[in-house]
């Protein structure tokens, strides 16, 4: 009978790096997006502006689009075309898409005039543009699924354009079943994935500071010192946006 030494239990926080790909992936992820950057408790003071609201408005609309879409998909066209409740959920699905695009376009305008690709945020900008383009395709398939004269008109106006660029076989707007699958599986997954990546990149680089935030701005200067090497404004926020500090009794009274 041989005896083997029982390995000592690993303590929390003890580095257990065996050099595997999972270890490397974990190190990379923690370096890029530590938990306090993924879920920050506060934000820079300049985030308290309506100019920083519309991105989250678009995400909130997307959540309702997906939730109402799941309900529509589970109940089917006979339900949402005929019953009053089905018609209501169908309409809320449409109107949340309208809000999604309105918020997304205003978000795009505001970030364009803010030059939001500054400070190493090019990928954040590109994923935002990608989410806009993929969302247009997803919305287009949704309009085709209205199964009314409007959708028939849209489909047969679009089919020649799609055939002319050679995608008509895989994206056949006259094939309702195929468009239904595109609309409820592939395109929502694509929109969701790009939007999640976009939000994660915002967390990695931080929200873009306003153009008039000067280099000697206290917050940006502190951030630069804290993260070291990252562009100004890319580090951790330093001013509480949601919590109150003892130094601000006036806010506490509100």
């Amino acid at each position, binding site marked *: 009978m041989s005896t083997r030494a029982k390995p000592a239990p690993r303590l929390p926080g003890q580095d257990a790096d065996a050099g595997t790909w999972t270890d490397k992936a974990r190190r990379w992820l923690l370096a890029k997006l530590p938990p306090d950057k993924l879920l920050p408790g506060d934000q820079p*003071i300049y985030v*308290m*502006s*309506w*100019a920083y*609201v*519309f991105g989250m408005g678009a995400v909130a609309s997307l959540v309702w689009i997906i939730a109402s879409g799941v309900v529509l998909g589970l109940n089917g066209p006979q339900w949402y*075309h*005929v019953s009053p409740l089905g018609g209501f959920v169908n309409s809320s699905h449409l109107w949340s898409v*309208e809000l999604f*695009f*309105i918020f997304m*376009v*205003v978000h795009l*305008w*505001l970030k364009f005039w803010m030059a939001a690709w500054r400070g190493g945020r090019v990928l954040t900008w590109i994923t935002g543009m990608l989410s806009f383009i993929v969302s247009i395709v997803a919305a287009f398939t949704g309009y085709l699924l209205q199964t*009314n*004269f*409007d959708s028939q008109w849209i489909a047969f106006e679009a089919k020649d354009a799609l055939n002319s660029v050679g995608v008509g076989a895989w994206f056949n707007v006259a094939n309702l079943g195929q468009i239904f699958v595109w609309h409820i599986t592939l395109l929502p997954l694509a929109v969701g994935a790009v939007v999640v990546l976009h939000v994660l990149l915002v967390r990695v680089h931080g929200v873009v500071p306003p153009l008039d935030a000067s280099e000697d701005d206290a917050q940006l200067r502190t951030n630069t010192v804290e993260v070291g090497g990252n562009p100004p404004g890319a580090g951790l926020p330093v*001013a509480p946006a949601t919590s109150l500090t003892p130094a*601000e009794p*006036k*806010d506490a009274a*509100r």
Partner: protein
Amino acid sequence: MAGWLVNGAATVGAGTYFGWDGFTIQSGNLIVIAVMVILFILALLLPFPGGKGRK
């Protein structure tokens, strides 16, 4: 079964269009664009609640 299809088809109208010198836009599209422009301007002008007094 065919009744709701017929009723549905009856609700599809041509819509209201506005046009100026060769430029034409449907009322719904014009309203959405106007709403977006108004929201853009308001986002720049309106103070954010709770932001007053913070430094």
